[in-house]
Structures are given as structure tokens and as C-alpha cells.
């Protein structure tokens, strides 16, 4: 799938330069919801096997950008996406591209937990099943268990795997959705505020998980917690009113941002 397109070459060059390869790249991404423009020409690279955090005030377009990365916006009829977004150098909005494969490779945890009205077990097993990732029941059981464990939910639900996922508490549902997403082992995981409903301990566990996943996966996370962004991400991008204000290594962003707005936002002096 890695074709030697221009982007591909560029990526290889990047590889040589010892900086991490670029897994996904957005160039001049614009999004309209009907008449309302939600993103204005966002250029953002997502480096491979790193965690990229998207921060910014509520309504600035973080989720919108995130949903562009695996074309979830396709499901909103009034939504139109412009610009280029590539995955491994390939344009994901190319008509030739296969969105199903794309979404299998670029998984997503949604902002509002949306468990299926099925049992907890079925919620997790769904992805591996449709992708045919496991050969038998035992393997599937193992995947379900390890996914739930990683999402720090196993202990709470191990005795009630057959109960409906919708009967869980808010935070449990959120973790269920995280477990569901990682069960299919995507290359890129998009997480929209994965810890918003979680208590500090669960949050810590999810952050640990993110750190662990980073070894093999590329991760993009939306968060409102500066601390969290600082803790888990290597790169941070700051959005404001639909514009990408600034983007760079997390250390730098949090210590010495270029943009005044970033600084204000991070220090909580915004608005």
C-alpha cells in the first residue's frame, strides 16, 4: 500500500532524518457544516508511533478534525471536507480509497460513549469478529479479556460480561468504548476525550495504556486537560475557532509556545 508517491518520498526522507515518520498528514483541511465553516485550512502532521494531543477551547473544531482522519464525517450529511489528508502518504479522501479498511486502520473512540445495546462481551467482540481477527472462541475470549484489562475495566465487569453494555456507568461505558476500539488493533487510534468521564485512577490507567500503545500504534487524542496533554503526548496541536494556532513538540508547547493564544490557553488566562 505504500506507494512511492510524492508524500511517500517525503516520508522516507523524514525517516532518514531520524525524525519519526509521518503517519497521517492534513494539508489545508477545511470543513463546513452546511453554511457554517468549522475548520479553516488546518495543516497538521501526525507522526508515527507517537501521541499527538489536540487541545483548544470547546467548539474549536478538535472533534471535527479528528473525525476527518478516519472519514467519520462522511456520516453527517451536511458536512463537507476539503483539503488533503493522507495516511502513509495516501490520500484518504481519494475515491479509490476504501473507507472500511481506513477505519479499521484508523480506529476511533467517540466523545459521547456509545456502547451497542448488546452484552459487554459482544461489544468488544464485535470488531474482531467483523474483521475476522480471531480464529476461534478461545482466541476471541482472550482478545476480549485483554482489551478490557487494558481499558482498566476487566475487574469491574468480569462477572457480568453478558449484561448489556448500556447498563454501565458513564465512566464504565467510556472505558468499554476504549476497549472496543483497541480490540481491533488499529494502526492509528483517535481518542476524543477518552478520560472525560473517568476518575483519576482510571484516567491514570488509560494514560498508562496510551503510553504502552504508543510502542506500536499512532495515537491522536483530544483532551481538555493540559496536564493530561503534557503527560501523555509527544506533540501537541492547539486549535482555536477552527484554526490551527500552533503545533509542535509538547515540551516546547507547554514551556515556550510561539503563539500568545496558546500561552494564554495553557495558563488558563484565555478569553
Amino acid at each position, binding site marked *: 500500500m505504500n506507494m512511492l508517491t510524492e508524500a511517500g518520498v517525503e516520508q522516507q526522507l523524514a525517516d532518514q532524518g531520524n525524525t519519526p515518520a509521518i503517519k497521517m498528514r492534513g494539508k489545508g483541511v477545511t470543513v463546513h457544516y452546511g453554511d457554517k465553516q468549522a475548520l479553516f485550512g488546518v495543516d497538521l502532521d501526525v507522526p508515527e508511533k507517537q501521541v499527538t494531543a489536540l487541545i483548544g477551547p470547546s467548539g474549536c473544531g478538535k472533534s471535527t478534525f479528528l473525525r476527518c482522519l*478516519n472519514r*467519520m464525517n462522511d*456520516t453527517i450529511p451536511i458536512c463537507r471536507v476539503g483539503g488533503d489528508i493522507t495516511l502513509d502518504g495516501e490520500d484518504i479522501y481519494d475515491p479509490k480509497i476504501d473507507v*472500511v*479498511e*481506513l*477505519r*479499521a*486502520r484508523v*480506529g*476511533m473512540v*467517540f466523545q*459521547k460513549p*456509545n*456502547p*451497542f*445495546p*448488546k452484552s459487554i462481551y459482544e461489544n468488544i467482540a*464485535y*470488531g474482531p469478529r*467483523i*474483521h475476522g481477527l480471531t480464529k476461534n472462541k478461545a482466541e476471541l475470549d482472550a482478545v476480549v479479556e485483554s482489551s478490557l484489562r487494558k481499558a482498566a475495566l476487566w475487574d469491574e465487569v468480569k462477572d457480568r460480561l453478558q449484561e*448489556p453494555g*448500556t447498563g454501565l456507568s458513564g465512566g464504565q461505558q467510556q472505558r468499554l*468504548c476504549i476497549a*472496543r*476500539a483497541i480490540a*481491533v488493533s*488499529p494502526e492509528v487510534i483517535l481518542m476524543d476525550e477518552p478520560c472525560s468521564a473517568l476518575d483519576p485512577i482510571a484516567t491514570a490507567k488509560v494514560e498508562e495504556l496510551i503510553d504502552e500503545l504508543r510502542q506500536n500504534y499512532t495515537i491522536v487524542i483530544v483532551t481538555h486537560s493540559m496536564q493530561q496533554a503534557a503527560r501523555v503526548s509527544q506533540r501537541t496541536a492547539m486549535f482555536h475557532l477552527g484554526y490551527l494556532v500552533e503545533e509542535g513538540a509538547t515540551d516546547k508547547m507547554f514551556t515556550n509556545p510561539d503563539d500568545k493564544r496558546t500561552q494564554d490557553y495553557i495558563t488558563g488566562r484565555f478569553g
Partner: protein
Amino acid sequence: MVSYLVLLLLVLGVAAYFVGRSRAVASVGGEVSRLHSLPGQHGLFLAMIAAGPALLAVLIWRIATPGIEDSIVQSRFAAELAEFGVPQLQAFLRDARAIAFGGIVSFPDETKEAAAVVFRSLHQTSIWLITAVALILAAGGSFFGYSRIAPAYRARHVVERVVKWFLILCSMIAILTTIGIVLSLIFESILFFSEIPIFNFLFGLHWSPQSAFTGAGGDAGDVNTEIFGAVPLLAGTLLITFIAMLIAAPVGLMAAIYLSDYATQRVRAVAKPVLEILAGIPTVVYGFFAALTVAPFFRGVGESIGLDVASESALAAGVVMGIMIIPFVSSLSDDVINAVPQSLRDGSAGLGATRSETIRRVVLPAALPGIVSALLLAVSRAVGETMIVVMAAGLAANLTFNPLEAVTTVTVQIVTLLVGDQEFDSAKTRAAFALGLLLFVITLALNVIALRVVQKYREQYD
């Protein structure tokens, strides 16, 4: 006059609504938020209590007075009417009324003229009476309601209780209907079972109430109890319904899925109502279609591959019936499928599921109860259909599960027996009632099972 009264009461109701509202507002000096209930609810309460009982009284009056007037006139003219039979009496009253209040007088005479005078005066009196009663009720209700309006008065409760009772009443109609149906079937059925042993009826394998009334079969008492076996009819019903569902369920369901998840809005907006026309085409048309187009077609196909297809076949009737009930499945399912929240579809799509996987594994299970309802409704319709079966599958009660043969259904037999020329008090006609009852009991049992199943597999989303 009375229509003016009703109008007056309606006006009073509307007025009461506004009065109640403003009174409620005034009672708190405009601080609406201090009211327990909305001003509108107070208004509604006052309107209901002011106009409701009076209107009810008028309604009762309207239903009851003609009878009362009639009986008064009858007793007044008892002497003249002594000789009269029922129809003459009725005609007398009809004509007297016509003279009194206008209308075609068929057989005028003097007594009728006299009676008309009585009618007129009676009517006048009764109008005054009801007017007085209604006005008293209205006034009483108004005062009572008006006095109740206070900030803390729970007008909403009253209004909502009325609403709730209305709702309960409405759902009770189903029970009443059921009772009515059972009652209207049971008496004749009992008579039937007094002639035909119930065992023979339920388990008999032979249905052929042939022996006719003219000379054949001897006396009325001499009934052959072996010819009323309901099993072939049930088998036929099952067969035809099954064939129909074999068409309607997949086609309807797939159509629903296509319309709700694949088709563009415009296609859906057109296709759905168009398909719904299928449900409204009179069954005679389907009958002709089945008998003159589909059946010969199947017969031709059958002959060409060496199968012996009867010219009336369960297949033809079932297939056409299936077409007819497609919209029951497609439209109702489409609505429930459409109602499954987008977030669930997103969740599945976000995991890399294809559209069809999302539909099959997430959307359909979530919509299952609704779909089952739709399917049940379609089955019900198929079970109850007659015309297509009569025209395309014939009336011969063969005990067979071969779809290429002629069969008949319970419903068809009920209709044929009821509209036939044989005398009504014969076992043959009564068999119709027994069949109705049997079908009722069987579908009841099936529905109980269906309810259990649905309750078990219900997936509550959100």
C-alpha cells in the same frame, strides 16, 4: 335550538379556558411562576369542568330522548295503537315525527297528525329541560372550578388525570373488542360443538361439508360428524401464510434496509409511499392478478420442467399475498430502523464495519422488537386474507404441504360459509363461528409466544 345550546357550551368552554387562565394569573398577581400549574392548565381545567358535564348531559339527552318521547306518545295513544304490530307502530312514529319535524310522510292519517302535535310539544318541553339542566351544570361547574383556582391548586393533575384516564380507556377498547369478538362467536360455536364433537373438529383430517341442503344428506338432524375436520384448513392457512411471508419478509425487510440506509433521501421519499400503495390495492385486484397472471405462469413454468402444478395453487395465492403485505414489513421496519440512533451506526463504522455489517449486526438487533411487530402484523394480515385465496387457491380443503396443490384457509372457509346459500342454523354455517373461535385461540397462543420472545431479545439502546 339544541345545536345553539351545544354551540353556547363550546363557547362557554373556550371562554372558561381564558377566564381560568387569567384568574390563575391574577391569583398570583402576575407572578406566574408561583402557580403550581400553568395558567393554561388552569384554563383547561375550568373549561373541562364548566362545559364537560353539560355537554355530556346534552349527549345523553340526545341519545335518550327519542326513545322517551316515543314511549310517551305510545302511551298517550295506547288505545289507537292497541291493534298495531311492531312495524306499524314504528311506521306510525316515523310518520308522526315526519309530520312534526319535517320529512317524507309516507302514510299520513289523522292519528298521526295528532301524535305529531304531541311530539312537537314534548320536544319543546324536553328542549327546555335539557337547556335548563345544561345551563345549571355549566354554571355550577364554572363556579366550582372558578372557586378552586388558586396558586396552589393542582390543575395540571386534574387535567393530566383526565388525559391518563382517556389513554387507559382507549387501551381498554382492545379488551372490549376481544370480549365482543369472543361473545359474538361463542354462542354459535357452542351450538356447533353440541352437534359436532369437538375432538372431530380439532383433529379431524377431513374437511368437506359437502352434503347440501336440497334433499341430500337426509334430515337436518342427520349430520355427518366426520366432515368437519379443521386440520386441513389450518395446514392450508399455515402453508399460504408461510409462502406469503417467504416473499414479504425478505423483500420487505431488504427494501426497508435499502430505503433507510442506502437510498438517497429523495429516493426514499418517493419509494416508500409508492410501496405503500401495494397495501391499499383492493384484494379483488390481487385476486384477479393471482388467478389470471401468476397461477397460469407458475403452471406454465411447472409444466415446462415437468411438474404438475394445479391451476389453483397455494403457491400463486401465497406469492401474491406476499406482494400485498410487503409494505407492512417494509414501511414499518423502515421507520424503526431509521429510529436507531446515529451514534450506534457511528460506533460501528468507527470500528471499520462495512455498512451492511453495521446494519446486520448493530442496527437490526437494536430495531428487532419493531421489526418483529411489523412481521407479526404482516403474518396477521396474511392469515386474515380471503379474496386472493378464494380466487387463486380455490376452496378445496386438501391436507397437503405441497405448495403446488390447491388448498384453502380458515378465513376463506369462514367467509364462504357465512355468505353461502345454505340455511343459517345449520352445522355448516355454525362451523364458520367455530372456525373463527379456533383461529382466534391459535393466534392468541402464537402471540403469547411471540411476546415472550420479543421481551427476551429486546435491546434497549441509548
